[in-house]
């Protein structure tokens, strides 16, 4: 699949990255080159090869279901730029 400038803008939007108009063309070239490398990888025959979800030959360790954390609210709220009434404040979200 060939990318166009609109794809680049959409991807940047999804990742919440600000991309200047004069950077779009350069990013398009970079992305296209990455995509062509991936296309090349996809020509490799992977039949009968189990997908690798993790490079470690280990399985997930489980944690006992106990409460180990205590209330650190004041300390944590202090890290935030704005907080009030025990809440973190963020720019208004409508949608």
């Amino acid at each position, binding site marked *: 699949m060939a990318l166009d400038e609109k794809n680049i803008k*959409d991807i940047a*939007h*999804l990742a*919440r990255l600000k991309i200047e108009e004069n950077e779009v063309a350069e990013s398009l070239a970079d992305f296209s080159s990455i995509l062509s490398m991936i296309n090349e990888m996809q020509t490799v025959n992977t039949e009968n090869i189990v997908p690798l*979800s*993790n490079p*470690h030959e*280990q*399985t*997930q*360790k*489980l*944690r*006992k*279901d*106990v*409460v*180990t*954390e205590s*209330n*650190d*609210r004041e300390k*944590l*709220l202090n*890290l935030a730029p*704005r907080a*009030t*009434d*025990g*809440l*973190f*404040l*963020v*720019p*208004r*979200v*409508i*949608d």
Partner: protein
Amino acid sequence: MAWETVIGLEVHVQLSTKSKLFSGSDIKFGAEPNTQANIFDLALPGTLPVFNESVLKMAVKFGLAINAKINKKSVFDRKNYFYPDLPKGYQVSQLDHPTVGPGSLKIKLDNGAEKKININRAHIEEDAGKSLHEDYQGMSGIDLNRAGTPLLEIVSEPDLRSAEEAVLFLKKLHSVIRYLDISDAIMAEGSMRCDANISVRKVGEIELGTRTEIKNINSFRFVERAINHEVRRQIELIEDGADIAQETRLYDSELDETRPMRSKEIANDYRYFPEPDLLPIIIDDTYIDAVRDELPELPEEKKQRFISQLKLNEYDAGVLVTNREIADFFEEIAIATQDSKAAANWVSQDMMALLNKNNCTILETPISAERLSSLIMRIKDGTISGKIAKRVFEFMVSDSSSVDSIIKEKGLEQVSDTNVIDQLVDDVIAKNQSQVEQYRAGKEQVIGFLVGQCMQQSKGKANPSQVNALLREKMR
């Protein structure tokens, strides 16, 4: 034109663990904002998830209860999106390898037929925090207590054909979840949440119509109303020659309507990929068998046992097993009184009416199984009549003393003293000569009136069978 409705449900239940899915934070409902949100839940750099073993066990329990395929390998994935109540910028979920694979639940339709509803999967994921959009200095407030609470998302196949079927399925699911005790599953509190995928097609058509997804439905009643509303809306649109837009809509219970969620410029693209901070979860048959051994008796099995062992009819058994606590309450009384029919009647009628009236659960009522058992025993041993028992029951709601002392204190013992009854019957005969003559002339049914007079005069306390026998004898 005849239309067919096609519905699939996505149900999220908050698992009732002690701590969060990937952190040791508390998850008590109703805590002060951000008092149960710690460094991992806030996604501070350097923190890593550690998987809670209870979550795995609860998911497997649910899978076994719906006869599902339990996947021996499950893998977590990141679902990426930006929203302030999701501090990591992604939700950890399971995409291609959910812990619970295909299973099914049976629902009983109003016509008595059983219908199997297939369940596509149930996967483990984390809940987000809460955004409060009231004006906080012109900003939104974020409470992350809920962030990281373990969820099981149960996805049905589009096998449901009406709002009624959807509600039956949801209630059955609720009952199973409560029996397993893996979630409080209280829709009003959000510990059970339901989204409905709805489409319509002409009867006989094979291809599915364009579906809409309805979110934000927070009671069983609203599930039915939201679906019915959406179905009508879709049919009207199609009959007017318009197309259905595939979109997400919100149900507004106050206006009883659905409306589209503010559409985003770009369709959601969650860019799933395997969660690199978590390894695959591998379980074996030994683990699954151990969980199976812990499964409680489920509603369907309990119902069959109530029918065969306690000789209940199908209807009573069905009513009593819907709720595990009510079923246990009933069974305790049935055993204590050795009278399962009386126990079933008192629990399914008087107790249920009391619960509805006081809007409480069976564990919150002032009437314990032990007290209701002694009430039934006092009817069986003739201390009080069934009618008086209803009055004693009323007293028991506000008076916590024993059944015996209520009966004694209120002077409600059944009068079986022959002398007293003799006097009573003579009195009634003397006062109702014309009815007595009618009876003697062969009008048998007048006896009912005369017994009624005796009962009224004794304020319901006379032993009715003694009264009946004595009246007949004296009027011979």
